[in-house]
Protein backbone atom coordinates (compact mmCIF):
# COMPACT_ATOMS: atom_id res chain seq x y z
CA UNK A 1 0.00 0.00 0.00
CA UNK A 2 2.81 2.40 0.95
CA UNK A 3 4.61 1.62 -2.30
CA UNK A 4 1.57 2.54 -4.35
CA UNK A 5 1.09 5.74 -2.38
CA UNK A 6 4.71 6.81 -2.62
CA UNK A 7 4.61 6.08 -6.32
CA UNK A 8 1.50 8.14 -6.76
CA UNK A 9 2.45 11.03 -4.50
CA UNK A 10 6.21 11.08 -5.02
CA UNK A 11 6.66 11.88 -1.35
CA UNK A 12 7.47 9.48 1.48
CA UNK A 13 6.19 11.50 4.41
CA UNK A 14 2.98 12.45 2.70
CA UNK A 15 2.38 8.80 1.83
CA UNK A 16 3.03 7.62 5.37
CA UNK A 17 0.78 10.26 6.91
CA UNK A 18 -1.97 9.53 4.42
CA UNK A 19 -1.78 5.78 5.08
CA UNK A 20 -2.01 6.37 8.81
CA UNK A 21 -4.98 8.64 8.38
CA UNK A 22 -6.76 6.09 6.22
CA UNK A 23 -6.28 3.38 8.86
CA UNK A 24 -7.64 5.72 11.53
CA UNK A 25 -10.73 6.46 9.46
CA UNK A 26 -11.23 2.74 8.83
CA UNK A 27 -10.94 1.96 12.54
CA UNK A 28 -13.64 4.46 13.23
CA UNK A 29 -15.97 3.70 10.33
CA UNK A 30 -15.74 -0.02 9.61
CA UNK A 31 -17.16 -1.23 12.94
CA UNK A 32 -20.13 1.08 12.40
CA UNK A 33 -20.76 0.76 8.65
CA UNK A 34 -19.32 -2.64 7.96
CA UNK A 35 -16.16 -3.59 6.09
CA UNK A 36 -16.17 -2.46 2.44
CA UNK A 37 -16.15 -5.02 -0.37
CA UNK A 38 -12.51 -4.28 -1.25
CA UNK A 39 -10.83 -3.21 2.01
CA UNK A 40 -7.37 -2.78 0.47
CA UNK A 41 -8.69 -0.67 -2.37
CA UNK A 42 -10.81 1.36 0.03
CA UNK A 43 -7.82 2.13 2.24
CA UNK A 44 -5.65 3.08 -0.70
CA UNK A 45 -8.29 5.31 -2.26
CA UNK A 46 -9.04 6.96 1.08
CA UNK A 47 -5.36 7.57 1.76
CA UNK A 48 -4.93 8.98 -1.71
CA UNK A 49 -7.88 11.33 -1.34
CA UNK A 50 -6.68 12.50 2.06
CA UNK A 51 -3.25 13.24 0.62
CA UNK A 52 -4.77 15.18 -2.26
CA UNK A 53 -6.89 17.21 0.17
CA UNK A 54 -3.81 18.05 2.10
CA UNK A 55 -1.89 19.05 -1.01
CA UNK A 56 -4.76 21.31 -2.03
CA UNK A 57 -4.66 23.00 1.34
CA UNK A 58 -0.96 23.59 0.92
CA UNK A 59 -1.30 24.68 -2.66
CA UNK A 60 0.36 28.00 -2.08
CA UNK A 61 3.60 26.37 -1.09
CA UNK A 62 5.84 26.63 -4.07
CA UNK A 63 7.74 23.45 -3.22
CA UNK A 64 4.64 21.40 -3.88
CA UNK A 65 4.16 22.63 -7.42
CA UNK A 66 5.84 19.67 -8.99
CA UNK A 67 3.72 17.32 -6.95
CA UNK A 68 0.58 19.17 -7.90
CA UNK A 69 1.37 18.87 -11.54
CA UNK A 70 1.48 15.10 -11.13
CA UNK A 71 -1.64 14.71 -9.03
CA UNK A 72 -3.58 17.10 -11.23
CA UNK A 73 -3.50 14.65 -14.10
CA UNK A 74 -5.29 11.92 -12.23
CA UNK A 75 -7.64 13.99 -10.11
CA UNK A 76 -10.72 13.28 -12.19
CA UNK A 77 -10.56 9.54 -11.86
CA UNK A 78 -9.90 9.73 -8.13
CA UNK A 79 -13.00 11.77 -7.55
CA UNK A 80 -15.17 9.53 -9.70
CA UNK A 81 -14.41 5.92 -9.00
CA UNK A 82 -12.99 5.50 -5.58
CA UNK A 83 -12.74 1.76 -5.44
CA UNK A 84 -12.45 0.91 -9.11
CA UNK A 85 -9.11 2.49 -9.99
CA UNK A 86 -6.53 -0.26 -10.42
CA UNK A 87 -3.24 0.38 -8.66
CA UNK A 88 0.03 -0.73 -10.11
CA UNK A 89 2.29 -2.78 -7.91
CA UNK A 90 5.04 -0.26 -7.25
CA UNK A 91 7.08 -2.17 -4.70
CA UNK A 92 9.93 -2.56 -7.17
CA UNK A 93 10.19 1.18 -7.79
CA UNK A 94 10.09 1.69 -4.04
CA UNK A 95 12.92 -0.72 -3.27
CA UNK A 96 15.14 0.81 -5.97
CA UNK A 97 14.53 4.21 -4.38
CA UNK A 98 15.23 2.92 -0.86
CA UNK A 99 18.44 1.22 -1.98
CA UNK A 100 19.77 4.10 -4.06
CA UNK A 101 23.55 4.32 -3.70
CA UNK A 102 23.29 8.06 -2.97
CA UNK A 103 21.86 7.06 0.42
CA UNK A 104 24.11 5.85 3.23
CA UNK A 105 24.12 2.08 3.57
CA UNK A 106 22.54 2.02 7.03
CA UNK A 107 19.85 4.39 5.78
CA UNK A 108 19.14 2.09 2.82
CA UNK A 109 18.60 -0.82 5.19
CA UNK A 110 16.39 1.19 7.56
CA UNK A 111 14.27 2.67 4.77
CA UNK A 112 13.76 -0.72 3.16
CA UNK A 113 12.58 -2.25 6.44
CA UNK A 114 10.33 0.72 7.08
CA UNK A 115 8.81 1.11 3.64
CA UNK A 116 8.75 -2.45 2.27
CA UNK A 117 8.48 -4.59 5.39
CA UNK A 118 6.26 -2.19 7.29
CA UNK A 119 8.46 -2.34 10.38
CA UNK A 120 8.07 0.47 12.89
CA UNK A 121 10.93 2.79 13.76
CA UNK A 122 11.11 1.31 17.25
CA UNK A 123 11.37 -2.25 15.92
CA UNK A 124 14.11 -1.31 13.46
CA UNK A 125 16.05 0.55 16.15
CA UNK A 126 15.74 -2.49 18.39
CA UNK A 127 16.96 -4.86 15.69
CA UNK A 128 20.05 -2.74 15.01
CA UNK A 129 20.77 -1.96 18.65
CA UNK A 130 20.53 1.81 18.30
CA UNK A 131 18.35 4.22 20.28
CA UNK A 132 14.96 4.87 18.73
CA UNK A 133 15.71 8.60 18.37
CA UNK A 134 18.83 7.80 16.36
CA UNK A 135 16.91 5.55 14.01
CA UNK A 136 14.09 8.09 13.66
CA UNK A 137 16.62 10.73 12.68
CA UNK A 138 18.31 8.39 10.21
CA UNK A 139 14.94 7.79 8.52
CA UNK A 140 14.03 11.47 8.47
CA UNK A 141 17.40 12.39 6.91
CA UNK A 142 17.12 9.67 4.29
CA UNK A 143 13.60 10.70 3.31
CA UNK A 144 14.69 14.32 3.09
CA UNK A 145 17.60 13.40 0.87
CA UNK A 146 15.34 11.44 -1.48
CA UNK A 147 13.21 14.53 -1.89
CA UNK A 148 15.90 17.23 -1.94
CA UNK A 149 18.42 15.42 -4.11
CA UNK A 150 15.85 14.19 -6.62
CA UNK A 151 16.41 10.46 -6.17
CA UNK A 152 14.03 9.00 -8.75
CA UNK A 153 11.14 6.66 -7.99
CA UNK A 154 11.44 4.18 -10.84
CA UNK A 155 13.00 0.97 -12.00
CA UNK A 156 16.43 1.99 -13.33
CA UNK A 157 16.93 1.90 -17.11
CA UNK A 158 18.77 -1.11 -18.57
CA UNK A 159 22.23 0.48 -18.58
CA UNK A 160 22.02 1.25 -14.86
CA UNK A 161 20.17 -1.88 -13.81
CA UNK A 162 23.07 -4.29 -13.12
CA UNK A 163 24.74 -1.93 -10.63
CA UNK A 164 21.53 -0.86 -9.01
CA UNK A 165 20.18 -4.38 -8.72
CA UNK A 166 23.32 -5.50 -6.96
CA UNK A 167 22.84 -2.62 -4.50
CA UNK A 168 19.31 -3.85 -3.79
CA UNK A 169 20.46 -7.45 -3.34
CA UNK A 170 23.25 -6.28 -1.02
CA UNK A 171 20.71 -4.54 1.22
CA UNK A 172 18.47 -7.62 1.37
CA UNK A 173 21.44 -9.83 2.18
CA UNK A 174 22.62 -7.36 4.83
CA UNK A 175 19.20 -7.54 6.50
CA UNK A 176 19.35 -11.33 6.36
CA UNK A 177 22.82 -11.49 7.86
CA UNK A 178 22.04 -9.03 10.60
CA UNK A 179 19.70 -11.71 11.81
CA UNK A 180 21.87 -14.69 11.03
CA UNK A 181 25.33 -13.89 12.32
CA UNK A 182 24.54 -14.97 15.84
CA UNK A 183 23.86 -11.51 17.18
CA UNK A 184 20.48 -11.63 15.51
CA UNK A 185 19.42 -14.63 17.56
CA UNK A 186 19.73 -12.54 20.67
CA UNK A 187 17.98 -9.34 19.76
CA UNK A 188 15.20 -10.15 17.33
CA UNK A 189 12.71 -9.56 20.08
CA UNK A 190 8.99 -9.90 19.63
CA UNK A 191 9.02 -8.39 16.14
CA UNK A 192 9.25 -10.66 13.16
CA UNK A 193 12.71 -12.09 12.58
CA UNK A 194 14.82 -10.02 10.21
CA UNK A 195 15.73 -13.25 8.46
CA UNK A 196 12.09 -13.88 7.59
CA UNK A 197 11.71 -10.28 6.42
CA UNK A 198 14.74 -10.62 4.17
CA UNK A 199 13.44 -13.88 2.72
CA UNK A 200 10.05 -12.33 2.08
CA UNK A 201 11.75 -9.39 0.31
CA UNK A 202 13.83 -11.83 -1.72
CA UNK A 203 10.72 -13.79 -2.72
CA UNK A 204 8.94 -10.59 -3.74
CA UNK A 205 11.94 -9.56 -5.86
CA UNK A 206 12.01 -12.99 -7.51
CA UNK A 207 8.35 -12.60 -8.36
CA UNK A 208 8.79 -9.04 -9.65
CA UNK A 209 12.02 -9.66 -11.60
CA UNK A 210 11.68 -13.29 -12.70
CA UNK A 211 14.33 -12.99 -15.42
CA UNK A 212 17.18 -11.87 -13.17
CA UNK A 213 19.21 -14.95 -12.16
CA UNK A 214 20.97 -13.39 -9.17
CA UNK A 215 17.62 -12.54 -7.58
CA UNK A 216 16.77 -16.25 -7.53
CA UNK A 217 20.32 -17.03 -6.42
CA UNK A 218 20.02 -14.74 -3.39
CA UNK A 219 16.63 -16.16 -2.46
CA UNK A 220 18.05 -19.69 -2.70
CA UNK A 221 21.03 -18.74 -0.55
CA UNK A 222 18.86 -17.25 2.19
CA UNK A 223 16.42 -20.16 2.20
CA UNK A 224 19.17 -22.76 2.37
CA UNK A 225 20.96 -20.96 5.19
CA UNK A 226 17.76 -20.33 7.09
CA UNK A 227 16.74 -23.99 6.80
CA UNK A 228 19.51 -24.82 9.27
CA UNK A 229 18.48 -22.20 11.79
CA UNK A 230 16.82 -24.69 14.14
CA UNK A 231 19.95 -26.86 14.24
CA UNK A 232 22.54 -24.12 14.52
CA UNK A 233 22.10 -23.36 18.21
CA UNK A 234 21.48 -26.14 20.77
CA UNK A 235 20.84 -25.12 24.39
CA UNK A 236 22.29 -21.70 23.61
CA UNK A 237 25.46 -23.25 22.17
CA UNK A 238 26.70 -22.96 18.60
CA UNK A 239 26.67 -26.23 16.66
CA UNK A 240 28.98 -26.64 13.67
CA UNK A 241 27.53 -27.81 10.38
CA UNK A 242 29.10 -31.26 10.63
CA UNK A 243 27.65 -31.81 14.11
CA UNK A 244 24.15 -30.51 13.43
CA UNK A 245 21.10 -32.72 13.90
CA UNK A 246 19.83 -32.95 10.35
CA UNK A 247 16.36 -33.85 11.53
CA UNK A 248 16.10 -30.25 12.70
CA UNK A 249 16.73 -28.85 9.23
CA UNK A 250 13.66 -27.34 7.62
CA UNK A 251 12.98 -29.63 4.65
CA UNK A 252 10.37 -27.30 3.14
CA UNK A 253 12.88 -24.46 3.07
CA UNK A 254 15.56 -26.70 1.59
CA UNK A 255 13.19 -27.74 -1.20
CA UNK A 256 12.21 -24.10 -1.86
CA UNK A 257 15.89 -23.12 -1.82
CA UNK A 258 16.84 -25.84 -4.30
CA UNK A 259 13.98 -24.80 -6.57
CA UNK A 260 15.14 -21.16 -6.53
CA UNK A 261 18.71 -22.28 -7.18
CA UNK A 262 17.47 -24.33 -10.14
CA UNK A 263 15.79 -21.26 -11.62
CA UNK A 264 18.96 -19.19 -11.17
CA UNK A 265 21.16 -21.84 -12.82
CA UNK A 266 18.68 -22.28 -15.68
CA UNK A 267 18.74 -18.53 -16.34
CA UNK A 268 22.53 -18.46 -16.28
CA UNK A 269 22.71 -21.41 -18.68
CA UNK A 270 26.35 -21.97 -19.57
CA UNK A 271 27.45 -18.64 -18.06
CA UNK A 272 29.23 -18.57 -14.72
CA UNK A 273 26.88 -17.75 -11.86
CA UNK A 274 27.13 -14.62 -9.73
CA UNK A 275 28.21 -14.46 -6.10
CA UNK A 276 24.83 -15.33 -4.56
CA UNK A 277 24.10 -18.19 -6.94
CA UNK A 278 27.53 -19.73 -6.35
CA UNK A 279 27.13 -19.43 -2.58
CA UNK A 280 23.67 -20.97 -2.85
CA UNK A 281 25.13 -23.85 -4.88
CA UNK A 282 27.64 -24.41 -2.08
CA UNK A 283 24.91 -24.28 0.58
CA UNK A 284 22.90 -26.80 -1.47
CA UNK A 285 25.91 -29.15 -1.52
CA UNK A 286 26.07 -28.92 2.26
CA UNK A 287 22.39 -29.86 2.48
CA UNK A 288 23.14 -33.33 1.06
CA UNK A 289 23.63 -36.19 3.50
CA UNK A 290 27.30 -36.28 2.63
CA UNK A 291 29.13 -33.14 1.54
CA UNK A 292 30.89 -33.47 -1.82
CA UNK A 293 34.10 -31.63 -0.84
CA UNK A 294 35.85 -31.65 -4.25
CA UNK A 295 32.74 -30.07 -5.78
CA UNK A 296 32.52 -27.57 -2.92
CA UNK A 297 36.20 -26.63 -3.35
CA UNK A 298 35.61 -26.16 -7.10
CA UNK A 299 32.62 -23.89 -6.42
CA UNK A 300 34.70 -21.82 -4.00
CA UNK A 301 37.34 -21.58 -6.70
CA UNK A 302 34.76 -20.12 -9.11
CA UNK A 303 33.48 -17.82 -6.39
CA UNK A 304 37.00 -16.59 -5.66
CA UNK A 305 37.38 -15.63 -9.33
CA UNK A 306 34.13 -13.63 -9.30
CA UNK A 307 34.47 -11.97 -5.91
CA UNK A 308 38.26 -11.83 -5.36
CA UNK A 309 37.53 -11.97 -1.64
CA UNK A 310 40.01 -13.38 0.88
CA UNK A 311 37.02 -14.70 2.88
CA UNK A 312 36.19 -16.93 -0.08
CA UNK A 313 39.80 -18.13 -0.20
CA UNK A 314 39.47 -18.98 3.48
CA UNK A 315 36.38 -21.09 2.77
CA UNK A 316 38.09 -22.79 -0.15
CA UNK A 317 40.91 -23.71 2.25
CA UNK A 318 38.37 -25.38 4.56
CA UNK A 319 37.09 -27.52 1.67
CA UNK A 320 40.67 -28.28 0.64
CA UNK A 321 41.49 -29.42 4.17
CA UNK A 322 38.60 -31.90 3.95
CA UNK A 323 40.06 -33.37 0.76
CA UNK A 324 43.82 -33.19 1.32
CA UNK A 325 44.09 -32.74 5.08
CA UNK A 326 44.72 -29.82 7.47
CA UNK A 327 48.29 -29.18 6.28
CA UNK A 328 47.01 -28.30 2.79
CA UNK A 329 44.36 -26.08 4.36
CA UNK A 330 46.98 -24.31 6.43
CA UNK A 331 49.13 -23.65 3.35
CA UNK A 332 46.12 -22.22 1.52
CA UNK A 333 45.34 -19.65 4.21
CA UNK A 334 48.93 -18.57 4.60
CA UNK A 335 49.26 -14.92 3.69
CA UNK A 336 45.54 -14.10 3.56
CA UNK A 337 45.09 -10.53 4.73
CA UNK A 338 42.31 -11.12 7.22
CA UNK A 339 43.90 -10.42 10.57
CA UNK A 340 40.80 -8.71 11.96
CA UNK A 341 38.53 -11.57 10.91
CA UNK A 342 37.69 -14.02 13.69
CA UNK A 343 37.00 -16.93 11.35
CA UNK A 344 40.52 -16.80 9.91
CA UNK A 345 41.93 -17.39 13.37
CA UNK A 346 39.28 -19.96 14.30
CA UNK A 347 39.96 -21.89 11.07
CA UNK A 348 43.71 -21.67 11.49
CA UNK A 349 43.35 -22.84 15.08
CA UNK A 350 41.29 -25.80 13.93
CA UNK A 351 43.89 -26.84 11.33
CA UNK A 352 46.70 -26.51 13.89
CA UNK A 353 44.71 -28.52 16.46
CA UNK A 354 44.16 -31.31 13.94
CA UNK A 355 47.89 -31.30 13.18
CA UNK A 356 48.65 -31.67 16.90
CA UNK A 357 50.35 -28.25 17.06
CA UNK A 358 48.48 -27.35 20.26
CA UNK A 359 50.56 -24.44 21.43
CA UNK A 360 50.07 -22.53 18.18
CA UNK A 361 46.41 -23.59 18.10
CA UNK A 362 45.89 -22.03 21.52
CA UNK A 363 47.26 -18.66 20.37
CA UNK A 364 44.97 -18.69 17.33
CA UNK A 365 41.87 -19.68 19.36
CA UNK A 366 42.61 -16.89 21.81
CA UNK A 367 42.80 -14.36 18.99
CA UNK A 368 39.48 -15.63 17.55
CA UNK A 369 37.90 -15.45 21.00
CA UNK A 370 38.98 -11.83 21.31
CA UNK A 371 37.33 -10.98 17.99
CA UNK A 372 34.10 -13.01 18.41
CA UNK A 373 30.94 -10.94 18.39
CA UNK A 374 28.32 -13.23 19.93
CA UNK A 375 28.10 -15.10 23.21
CA UNK A 376 27.47 -18.56 21.70
CA UNK A 377 30.52 -18.11 19.49
CA UNK A 378 32.68 -17.05 22.41
CA UNK A 379 31.51 -20.03 24.45
CA UNK A 380 32.22 -22.38 21.53
CA UNK A 381 35.78 -21.07 21.20
CA UNK A 382 36.25 -21.29 24.96
CA UNK A 383 35.23 -24.99 24.86
CA UNK A 384 37.79 -25.63 22.15
CA UNK A 385 40.44 -23.87 24.25
CA UNK A 386 39.53 -25.97 27.28
CA UNK A 387 39.79 -29.16 25.23
CA UNK A 388 43.36 -28.46 24.09
Amino acid at each position, binding site marked *: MLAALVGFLGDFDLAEDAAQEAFAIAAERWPREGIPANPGGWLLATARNRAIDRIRRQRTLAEKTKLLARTGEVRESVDDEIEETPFRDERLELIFTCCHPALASDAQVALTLRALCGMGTEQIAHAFLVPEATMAQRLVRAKRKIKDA*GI*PFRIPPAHLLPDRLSAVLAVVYLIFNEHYDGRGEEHDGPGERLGAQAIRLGAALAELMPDEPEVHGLLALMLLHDSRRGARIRDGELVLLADQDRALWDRTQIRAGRAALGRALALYGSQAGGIYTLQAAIAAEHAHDRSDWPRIAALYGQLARVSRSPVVELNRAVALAEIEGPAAGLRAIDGLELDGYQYLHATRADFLRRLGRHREARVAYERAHELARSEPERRFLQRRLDEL
Partner: protein
Amino acid sequence: MKYMLNVYSPNSSVWERLSEHERSAISAEYAAINETPGILGGAQLQPPTSATTVRVHDGSTLATDGPFIETKEALGGYWLIEVEDLDAAIELAARVPAARLGGAVEVRPVVER
Protein backbone atom coordinates in the same frame (compact mmCIF):
# COMPACT_ATOMS: atom_id res chain seq x y z
CA MET B 1 15.80 19.48 -11.28
CA LYS B 2 18.78 21.81 -11.14
CA TYR B 3 22.10 20.62 -9.80
CA MET B 4 25.52 22.10 -9.31
CA LEU B 5 28.37 19.83 -10.34
CA ASN B 6 31.44 20.85 -8.39
CA VAL B 7 34.52 19.43 -10.07
CA TYR B 8 37.41 18.71 -7.72
CA SER B 9 40.58 18.42 -9.73
CA PRO B 10 43.08 15.68 -9.15
CA ASN B 11 46.52 16.60 -7.89
CA SER B 12 48.24 18.73 -10.58
CA SER B 13 50.99 16.13 -10.95
CA VAL B 14 48.42 13.78 -12.52
CA TRP B 15 47.85 16.27 -15.32
CA GLU B 16 51.59 16.91 -15.73
CA ARG B 17 52.31 13.21 -16.20
CA LEU B 18 49.86 12.94 -19.10
CA SER B 19 51.12 12.99 -22.68
CA GLU B 20 50.18 15.77 -25.07
CA HIS B 21 47.85 13.37 -26.83
CA GLU B 22 46.06 12.38 -23.60
CA ARG B 23 45.68 16.00 -22.57
CA SER B 24 44.02 17.01 -25.82
CA ALA B 25 41.71 13.97 -25.59
CA ILE B 26 40.65 15.08 -22.10
CA SER B 27 40.13 18.67 -23.25
CA ALA B 28 37.89 17.32 -25.99
CA GLU B 29 35.89 15.40 -23.38
CA TYR B 30 35.35 18.59 -21.38
CA ALA B 31 34.30 20.40 -24.54
CA ALA B 32 31.81 17.60 -25.30
CA ILE B 33 30.32 17.86 -21.81
CA ASN B 34 29.84 21.60 -22.39
CA GLU B 35 27.72 20.75 -25.41
CA THR B 36 25.47 18.32 -23.50
CA PRO B 37 21.81 19.31 -23.34
CA GLY B 38 20.88 20.38 -19.82
CA ILE B 39 24.08 22.32 -19.16
CA LEU B 40 22.98 25.78 -18.07
CA GLY B 41 26.43 27.20 -17.51
CA GLY B 42 29.79 26.56 -15.99
CA ALA B 43 33.39 27.62 -15.84
CA GLN B 44 36.85 26.37 -15.18
CA LEU B 45 38.49 28.13 -12.26
CA GLN B 46 42.03 29.41 -11.86
CA PRO B 47 44.03 27.38 -9.32
CA PRO B 48 43.25 27.88 -5.59
CA THR B 49 46.53 29.77 -5.14
CA SER B 50 44.79 32.61 -6.97
CA ALA B 51 41.86 32.65 -4.56
CA THR B 52 40.99 35.40 -2.09
CA THR B 53 38.67 34.75 0.83
CA VAL B 54 36.45 37.57 2.03
CA ARG B 55 34.83 37.95 5.45
CA VAL B 56 33.00 40.88 6.96
CA HIS B 57 33.35 41.57 10.68
CA ASP B 58 31.50 44.48 12.29
CA GLY B 59 31.11 46.15 8.93
CA SER B 60 34.76 45.96 7.91
CA THR B 61 35.89 43.78 5.07
CA LEU B 62 38.67 41.33 5.69
CA ALA B 63 40.23 39.82 2.59
CA THR B 64 42.78 37.04 3.01
CA ASP B 65 44.96 35.17 0.59
CA GLY B 66 44.02 31.59 -0.32
CA PRO B 67 40.90 29.45 -0.60
CA PHE B 68 38.27 29.15 2.15
CA ILE B 69 39.09 25.49 2.72
CA GLU B 70 42.55 24.10 2.05
CA THR B 71 42.11 20.64 0.57
CA LYS B 72 44.23 18.30 -1.45
CA GLU B 73 41.61 18.25 -4.18
CA ALA B 74 40.72 21.80 -5.03
CA LEU B 75 37.52 23.06 -6.63
CA GLY B 76 38.62 23.36 -10.24
CA GLY B 77 35.38 24.29 -11.91
CA TYR B 78 31.63 23.83 -11.91
CA TRP B 79 28.59 23.32 -14.03
CA LEU B 80 25.03 24.28 -13.36
CA ILE B 81 22.79 21.71 -14.99
CA GLU B 82 19.10 20.98 -15.33
CA VAL B 83 18.22 17.30 -15.72
CA GLU B 84 15.39 14.91 -14.89
CA ASP B 85 16.69 13.50 -11.61
CA LEU B 86 19.72 12.50 -9.54
CA ASP B 87 20.46 9.48 -11.75
CA ALA B 88 20.86 11.75 -14.77
CA ALA B 89 23.07 14.11 -12.78
CA ILE B 90 25.24 11.21 -11.60
CA GLU B 91 25.61 9.93 -15.16
CA LEU B 92 26.78 13.33 -16.33
CA ALA B 93 29.14 13.67 -13.35
CA ALA B 94 30.63 10.28 -14.16
CA ARG B 95 31.63 11.55 -17.61
CA VAL B 96 33.83 14.28 -16.12
CA PRO B 97 37.47 13.20 -16.63
CA ALA B 98 38.53 14.54 -13.20
CA ALA B 99 36.29 11.90 -11.60
CA ARG B 100 38.39 9.02 -12.95
CA LEU B 101 41.79 10.75 -12.61
CA GLY B 102 41.80 10.82 -8.82
CA GLY B 103 39.56 13.85 -8.38
CA ALA B 104 35.81 13.84 -7.74
CA VAL B 105 32.60 15.51 -8.72
CA GLU B 106 30.18 16.64 -6.05
CA VAL B 107 26.54 16.72 -7.07
CA ARG B 108 24.50 19.28 -5.14
CA PRO B 109 20.82 19.96 -5.76
CA VAL B 110 20.04 23.65 -6.16
CA VAL B 111 17.32 25.25 -4.04
CA GLU B 112 14.59 26.22 -6.48
CA ARG B 113 12.23 29.04 -5.68
